[in-house]
């Protein structure tokens, strides 16, 4: 008797497996929950579920004085708090028509670029961690600690600074700050070569990230993706250049964009590489700013009572993650009527279902890592 295997197709039932990735998962960068439908290892559908870290930031602001909002903006993007402070201060200064002394602008640029380096170090380190490289992460965290030391010296806090105020900064630079920042730059430049050697040009890393999760420029623009994730797709859009604020017009720097060096334009490697190059640009900016920082009083323009005139303002700012936008409506009282925040990481995350479907679970992790999200800012 022949035992020819016979498969009755009507009896074979296949269905997609629904996987819950997060909110407690090592690679979701916080408390993000991804509901993924998988066919084998291949992801066919992704539903990001957010809100686990929602703290009513915008509603809170409607009951806080304008000065009191600053520490709350810190807590949105806790990886790059300086940028959140700066974005808010910029919006308020536009609303109130405050002219900020040039020294303040330079201080803001210096701390902002240091913060950008620190933020990118975390982003790249955790990206490497997602791919499975643990050593680069510890090295990057080591260097970030040095920046945090500088900030501690500067304003007394390591993570949530409340440093950039409406109309100025809370403290002037300490006496040794400029020297120490120079030392840091001298120390840090060779470290970036080490990161490149260990991780960026590692064959396994390239295999894992190049040509993975390609984000075409038109899709990126349609979804409102900003920051390094957008520039990774080859779109040259940086508010520091295109809507130059603060002291940026006086400083010389390039805007790196993804070129598809290892694969195609807009893949995970490009997004990684843009951040790597941006750190070098930040070092360049800090170097120039330290040389040309003027003297002056840093709290001259700080108003005694922040009480903007009636009206509204929308102001955007380039953080380490993209464009942060503050929309503030004032009715002339000392608390805002409404404060709306446009979160860059939220828009960047929204694109994930577009670019990660059809890839494997491991790739989904890599793509998520390359988008560099911070849940504190997405959920607010």
């Amino acid at each position, binding site marked *: 008797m022949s035992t020819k295997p016979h498969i009755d197709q009507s009896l074979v039932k296949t269905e997609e497996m629904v996987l819950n990735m997060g909110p407690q998962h090592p690679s979701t960068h916080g408390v993000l929950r991804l509901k993924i439908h998988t066919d084998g290892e291949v992801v066919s559908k992704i539903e990001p579920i957010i809100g686990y870290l929602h703290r009513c930031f915008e509603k809170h602001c409607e009951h*806080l*004085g304008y*000065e*009191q*909002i*600053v*520490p*709350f903006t*810190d*807590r949105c993007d806790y990886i790059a708090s300086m940028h959140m402070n700066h974005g808010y201060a910029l919006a308020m200064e536009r609303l109130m028509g405050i002219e900020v002394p040039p020294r303040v602008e330079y201080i803001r640029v210096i701390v902002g670029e240091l913060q950008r380096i620190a933020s990118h170090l975390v982003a790249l380190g955790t990206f490497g961690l997602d791919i499975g490289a643990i*050593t680069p992460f510890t090295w990057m965290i*080591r260097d970030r*600690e040095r920046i945090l*030391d500088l900030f*501690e*010296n*500067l*304003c*007394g*806090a390591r993570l*949530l600074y*409340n440093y950039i105020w409406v109309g100025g900064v*809370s*403290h*002037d630079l*300490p006496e040794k700050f400029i020297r120490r920042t120079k030392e840091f730059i001298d120390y840090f430049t060779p470290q970036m070569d*080490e990161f490149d*050697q*260990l991780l960026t*040009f*590692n*064959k*396994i890393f390239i295999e894992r990230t190049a040509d993975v999760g390609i984000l075409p420029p038109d899709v990126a623009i349609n979804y409102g993706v900003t920051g390094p994730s957008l520039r990774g797709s080859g779109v040259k859009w940086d508010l520091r250049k295109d809507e130059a604020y603060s002291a940026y017009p006086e400083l010389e720097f390039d805007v790196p964009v993804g070129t598809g060096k290892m694969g195609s334009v807009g893949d995970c490697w490009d997004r990684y590489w843009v951040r790597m190059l941006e750190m070098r640009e930040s070092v360049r900016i800090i170097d120039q700013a330290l040389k040309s920082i003027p003297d002056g009083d840093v709290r001259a323009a700080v108003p005694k009572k922040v009480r903007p005139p009636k009206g509204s303002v929308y102001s955007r700012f380039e953080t380490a993650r993209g464009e942060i936008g503050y929309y503030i409506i004032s009715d002339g009282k000392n608390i805002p009527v409404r404060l709306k925040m446009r979160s860059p990481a939220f828009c960047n995350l929204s694109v994930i279902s577009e670019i990660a479907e059809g890839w494997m679970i491991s790739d989904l992790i890599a793509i998520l890592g390359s988008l560099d999200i911070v849940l504190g800012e997405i959920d607010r």
Partner: protein
Amino acid sequence: MSEYFANIFYGLKSFAEGLQLTMRHFRNRKDLVATLQYPHEKWPIEDRHIGFPLEEYNIIRSRLNVDIDDCIGCLQCERACPVDCIKIETIKPPKGSDFDCGITSNGTKMKMLVARFSIDMTECMFCNLCTFPCPEDCIYMVGGPNSSKHEIEYEYASRDRESLIFQFANPSESDVLAVGGENYLRAKAGLPPLAPEVPVKPVETVSTATEKPTPTAGEPDVKVLNGITDRMVRATAKKAFMAAARGGSDLAAIAKSIQAALEEAGKFTDEAKAVLDSLAVTQTPTPVTVNEVSSEAKPDIKTLNVLEDKMVRGMAKKIFMAESRGGKSASEMVDAILAGLKEADKLTPETEAVVRQLAPEVPVSTPKPSAPVTDFNVKVLNGIEDRMTRGLAKKAFMAAQREGKSASEIIQTVQTALSEADKLTDDVKTLLLSIGGDKA
């Protein structure tokens, strides 16, 4: 095919480079180790001195500290705090009090006593906003090597939440009492606050103003006994209470008589004892030395606003203020004002009438040693058990009161009304007598 081998070659090359790099770190660990063994080695805290008087304070944010001796209680830090973790309570000494609140190290004279200054560090978000508005620089963040003014502390971890709530102000009880903070102390002890005090305008002598008891404190309240759970016991106790209260005895005596009644009935439980104790404790310390005049005939400067002539009004008010500062009584004040106006030749009959309103003609009653005058309202008749009788008595009472009769007259009226209706039982008679009917 060539790409295949190129890939392999590139891979091997990059692996070799990576391995070389990690090996370099492995070999040079002595120079490259970036961590510290925390409890044994400590990272040097950034020694940045910055602040309000420059070079004085450290801004490293580890904990809030307050120099309470310098705090003037201006509440600016409390207002600046976005999360309301600072709680300040101040007591302002009454006018005329010679309590010395002290002088800050900046030389500012403190105007009030800071009774409570608590910072809940479990709520604090370390934003540093409270330290900037402080006019005396007495609230600041600590955490690093400070100047000699402040102690150095490094870690502020704690095993329980309670120890993270810092109470900076700790005034002595006598200080609080000296600035008139009885309510504050009562609230601290979990007692209900005293009734809202009459704004202190020392019309009478200072002593009467401060000794003035609460209207309710001396009143024997049968509700205290609701604390007894057993119904039977409660009823017995209440009956005894009422009887004793009607007899006009003070609280201690009431408690004693209740105890006796309960013991007789064999129902004197521990619970009842506790309730009686609380009765004695909460209510006895107020001796019934009521000065009716001080509360009822309080002269009000606003009365003078009726005066139409600006000059007259101003003059009258001036005299009023001077007299009240001198602590004169209402009638003396009226006399003074009238005299003053007469001197200036401004005294019209209308003015005189207005001024006289300051001191009501009829002082309501004089203090009675046996019966608390505050009892003298219609509620005293609630002791009458028969409903009909009670209603009748109350009606007569209200009518008489409306006519403005004095207490003894009112009681007389009630008595007459009841006897007319033939309802004047012995019980009621005793009750009426107990509230002063006998004086009629």
